[in-house]
């Protein structure tokens, strides 16, 4: 059990959680057509931060990826008193590829560039920027990294080692990653369509998010990270499980830790990447877990797939859903899937919400599930 003391989302839809949430609730999408992102010159649909977004930040030799983390953490830590320099405060980072964007433009790979590609080194630099004296924890578990980082932070707090965890994640849209997903034929031909019958792939996105977790409850009402679990399909390194059983296993364990049942869940913030396989697998997992009738939404149509940041960005959106009493729509949703159709909203719905389930799955067969509750 850990408490959410503050949070931030830095996205193309806004530099704060509130701004991004409002935009997503209004059905807006940051996904747009871009030229010049792929070496072939082909157009691609992706969600990018606006040019010059980091202008006001101190550069100090930080990379765009590191600046995203800094800006996000800065905003979150401005909302509450956090003993950033205390030994009882740990930074936990989530990212899949860190500074990989630096490779796109590099003429050659110097030892200095290799050093900059180190995820742990980026984490150290960012934590140090905020005066942290504790070696930061870095979780890199493909697309469940954000969810995994929150779970790791919750565990670290529960172990008594720390009182506060600053959990931050980010990933950039890079040629490196775009070309890879293109080679996987995983990119959508247009804006992606999560959980839709005619879904055809993902849009990549870039964003950063931060959640500050505390072991002690804050003053006033708070949202709790009440439970979580991670599992592995043990099936294929890039294709998801055909049955969804292992994601269902994680969902079940998360609920058990939160001392709740499927019936208690008020909404599901799904991974919903809009690939044919992922969305089908998730629908199966939801059915196995007994949450298939609960309102489901995917943020991937609004913000794209933000990889290592996704689990954190979408957890913040889930927290806000709970505190704002608002079920989010799924941008890009078109027609229900033929099998295991899920209740997907096209517009925001007010509702009294107390329990949210966040799911994620990633390359390497990993799955993650988190339960957020509003007291």
């Amino acid at each position, binding site marked *: 059990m850990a408490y959410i003391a503050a949070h931030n989302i830095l996205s193309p839809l806004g530099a704060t959680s509130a701004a991004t949430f409002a935009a997503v609730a209004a059905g807006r999408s940051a996904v747009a057509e871009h030229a010049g992102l792929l070496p072939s010159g082909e157009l691609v649909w992706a969600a990018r931060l606006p040019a010059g977004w980091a202008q006001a930040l101190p550069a100090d030799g930080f990379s765009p990826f590191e600046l995203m983390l800094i800006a996000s953490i800065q905003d979150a830590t401005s909302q509450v008193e956090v003993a950033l320099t205390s030994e009882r405060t740990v930074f936990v980072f989530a990212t899949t590829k860190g500074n990989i964007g630096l490779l796109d433009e590099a003429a050659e790979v110097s030892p200095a560039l290799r050093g900059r*590609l180190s995820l742990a080194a980026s984490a150290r630099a960012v934590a140090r920027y905020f005066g942290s004296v504790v070696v930061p924890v870095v*979780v890199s*578990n493909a697309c469940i990294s954000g969810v995994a980082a929150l779970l*790791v932070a919750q565990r670290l707090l529960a172990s008594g080692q720390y009182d506060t965890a600053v959990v931050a994640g980010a990933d950039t849209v890079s040629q490196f990653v775009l070309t890879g997903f293109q080679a996987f034929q995983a990119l959508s031909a247009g804006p992606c369509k999560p959980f839709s019958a005619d879904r055809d792939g993902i849009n990549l996105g870039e964003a950063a998010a931060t959640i500050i977790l505390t072991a002690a409850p804050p003053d006033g009402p708070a949202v709790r990270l009440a439970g979580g*679990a991670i599992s*592995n399909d*043990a099936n294929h390194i890039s294709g998801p499980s055909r049955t969804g059983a292992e994601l269902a296993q994680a969902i079940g364990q998360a609920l058990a830790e939160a001392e709740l049942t499927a019936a208690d869940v008020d909404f599901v913030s799904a991974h919903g990447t809009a690939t044919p396989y992922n969305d089908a697998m998730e629908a199966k997992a939801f059915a196995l877990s007994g949450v298939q009738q609960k309102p489901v939404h995917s943020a991937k149509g609004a913000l794209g797939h933000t990889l290592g940041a996704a689990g954190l960005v979408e957890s913040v959106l889930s927290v806000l859903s709970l505190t704002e009493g608002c079920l989010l729509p799924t941008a890009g949703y078109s027609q229900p899937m033929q099998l295991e159709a899920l209740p997907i909203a096209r517009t925001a719905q007010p509702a009294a919400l107390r329990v949210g389930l966040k799911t994620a799955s990633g*390359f*390497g*067969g990993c799955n993650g599930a988190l339960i957020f509750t509003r007291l």
Partner: protein
Amino acid sequence: MTHSLKLLRSCSIQNGTIQVDGTNVFAGPPATFAAFATAAFRALGIEYPKFHKMDNLAKLGFLAAEHLLAGQDFRAPGLAARTGVVLANATSSLDTDLRYETQLRQRLASPALFVYTLPNIVVGELCIRHGITGENLLFMTERYEPAAQVAYVANLFAKQRIDRCLGGWIDLLGQEYRAFFYLVGPSSEAALPYTTANVETLFIS
């Protein structure tokens, strides 16, 4: 729990040798990692053609886990979901990242390489091979920090999330490679308690 946590077995791979519980079980000819890995794989005498498709980091992890888990069956009901994998690594998938980038610039993006440009894929390969579906995590640290890992894993046991865990360190970049895996679980017979000091001792030996 009735029995305290013990280090049940360890496997170390470096400099062309494989050791299990401190004993050499395989020594390859002085050669590239790729040649060493192929020779070590053939010495296992197993049928697993997917091995040859793996990148070097995944091959390293596969070999270490194969020796570590020899004789263990995680497909027994319940055990698969109660087995954890908690590993640490420094250079991520940089070795493959650079190969991917080179191929991308010279020819076309390779999906077979791209899938390995995530450091946790090695964990995925181990889970597939050994049928492990429990908690699996990869931590990025600049050097191996046994204290943090031991604390984290011990906490998983204390919270009764797992009955067994594969822990350790794995890193590979070019011809520099090191795998240090251990199996930890409750045991009344095994001798070595699961402590930071014991893990460190095994790691540096």
